[in-house]
């Protein structure tokens, strides 16, 4: 009986040299925060550990998370990870279709109960029994609950799965709901529209190397990548502190690369690693190309518009009205109110004031009379 090839043999066969493989491993180690001494651990994990089977579900989404993932910066990152987990089911990449595809999923769930990794891309519509997203005749809710039951690890890819993203934007017609609100099991949220490819690889690498979840924050996001705001690591930050701001996209200040805060940049309220890892093999990120951050990894970012203004529009008052507009109206109203009040006081209370004045004059008189 022929032995199945080791992972190393397998990747060498697919044209990746040992050197490239080791380079990838050091890169992966750095991403998950290990120092040089940790590299052998990563190498070992990728060479020897059993490949966990994975199921990747797609619900209400645009597939940008998958697209991002397969564009990981190191050309072999996604490759290796996709090889390293055995991706038994993913609608957008798998070869089989129809019943054959569904069968490979049910087989994985049965044979690897308690051991497989569940990756979810997309939100789940909860309204009207979930009819707004069905696959193979079954609703997304059903499919998710069934797959989650035996999963060893559940990752919610992207903003749709972690916070609802555009499907859940007001008025959320299908009641699109993030994964962690549906399941009672721990879920790793990797928000972003899409999430950064290297962050996605790193989350999986962390699990493969250590066999457990990375450290998560209060919102279920890996702390390694979501504990700092884009603003905290942004290279335009010195302009912010100096108070040098772009005032319009075509001014001299934009050309000089000043801070985009006044153009509605959401960097100060957005937790993500864009300014550190950047995108497309470290080429750039939105702010570097002159556009403010949209806050795509934050809850409700679609409803926090308009994007090109610092303050959101005030609910119920139309798009141009901010808290400052309302505040100014109320403030001026209050000033006008007290001014009017002061005038009417002097008219209406003339009698009272006169009485007080008379009283006071009496005092003077009494004093004059030697009391």
């Amino acid at each position, binding site marked *: 009986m022929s032995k199945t090839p080791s992972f190393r043999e397998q990747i060498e066969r697919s044209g990746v040299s040992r050197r490239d493989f080791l380079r990838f491993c050091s890169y992966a180690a750095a991403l998950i925060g290990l120092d040089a001494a940790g590299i052998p651990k990563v190498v070992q994990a990728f060479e020897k550990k059993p490949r966990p089977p994975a199921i990747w579900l797609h619900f209400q989404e645009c597939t940008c998370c998958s697209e991002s993932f397969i564009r990981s910066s190191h050309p072999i990152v996604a490759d290796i990870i996709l090889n390293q987990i055995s991706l038994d089911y993913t609608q957008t990449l798998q070869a089989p279709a129809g019943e054959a595809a569904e069968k490979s999923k049910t087989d994985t769930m049965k044979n690897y109960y308690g051991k497989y990794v569940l990756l979810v891309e997309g939100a789940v519509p909860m309204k009207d029994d979930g009819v707004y997203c069905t696959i193979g005749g079954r609703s997304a809710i059903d499919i998710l609950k069934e797959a989650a039951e035996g999963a060893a690890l559940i990752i919610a890819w992207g903003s749709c799965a972690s916070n609802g993203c555009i499907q859940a934007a007001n008025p959320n017609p299908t009641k699109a709901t993030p994964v962690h609100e549906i399941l009672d099991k721990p879920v790793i949220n990797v928000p972003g529209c899409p999430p950064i490819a290297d962050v996605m690889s790193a989350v999986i690498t962390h699990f493969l190397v250590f066999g457990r979840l990375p450290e998560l924050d*209060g919102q279920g996001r890996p702390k390694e990548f979501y504990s700092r705001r884009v603003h*905290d690591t942004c290279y335009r930050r010195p302009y912010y*502190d*100096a*108070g040098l701001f772009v005032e319009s996209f075509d001014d001299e200040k934009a050309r000089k690369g000043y801070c985009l805060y*006044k153009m509605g940049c959401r960097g100060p*309220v957005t937790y993500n690693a864009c300014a550190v890892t950047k995108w497309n093999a470290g080429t750039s990120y939105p702010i570097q190309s002159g556009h403010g951050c949209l806050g795509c990894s934050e809850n*409700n970012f679609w409803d926090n518009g308009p994007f090109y203004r610092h303050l959101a529009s005030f609910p119920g008052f139309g798009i141009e009205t901010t808290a400052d507009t309302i505040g100014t109206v109320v403030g001026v109203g*209050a000033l006008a109110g007290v001014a009017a009040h002061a005038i009417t006081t002097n008219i209406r209370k003339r009698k*009272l004031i006169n009485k007080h004045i008379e009283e006071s004059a009496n005092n003077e008189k009494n004093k004059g009379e030697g009391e």
Partner: protein
Amino acid sequence: MAVKNAVYRRVYVWEFPVRLYHWVNAICVALLIVTGYLIGKPIAIEYGNEAYQQYWFGTVRFIHFVSAFIFFFNFLVRIYWGFVGNTYARWQNFIPWKKSQWHEIKEILKVDILQRDVGERISIGHNSLAGLVYFLTFLVFLFQAFTGFALYSSMSSSFFPQLFSWVVPFMGGDFAVRQWHHMFMWFFIVFAIIHVYLVFYHDYVEGRGTTSSMVGGWKFEREEDL
């Protein structure tokens, strides 16, 4: 017919800690409003300098944060004083839990809004309506401090601001927290306008030294009301 002259006695209503609290609070709130407004809408200054030559926005934020800490701890001291201070400083003045307080609220509303003459004796400390409004204001202080320190918690790893980091997910993210924090700035502005006016107004119609009481601590009461 000669008007009957009232004899007034002076009463020490606002003890020193209360007066100190009041003015520290006023200065902090003024600074917080000005710096907060600038943080929300920085003015465009002209640009001879490079970024490393100036730090004005950083300084504005620094003033905001320093005033914020003073504002908050000053407020805690006032709460403490609400339990140990004199009758006029006590917490009971701020919550209308007695029928007589509700009665006075109605009377004051008549005096303030319908501009009726002062009929009955008005409490010499806070009148009941003022007390109730200050109570609501204290709640807004807390709201502003909670949202402010929640925003601050992502800029600082020290112990104190971290106590408020839970507010962020609770309110649905930093953006929402910032919006609410910004919106409530207007409460402080409108409050300040009306508060200062009403102090002057009551000074005028009551004639008992309302305005100066927050400086010297004294108000005046008719002898027969003592």
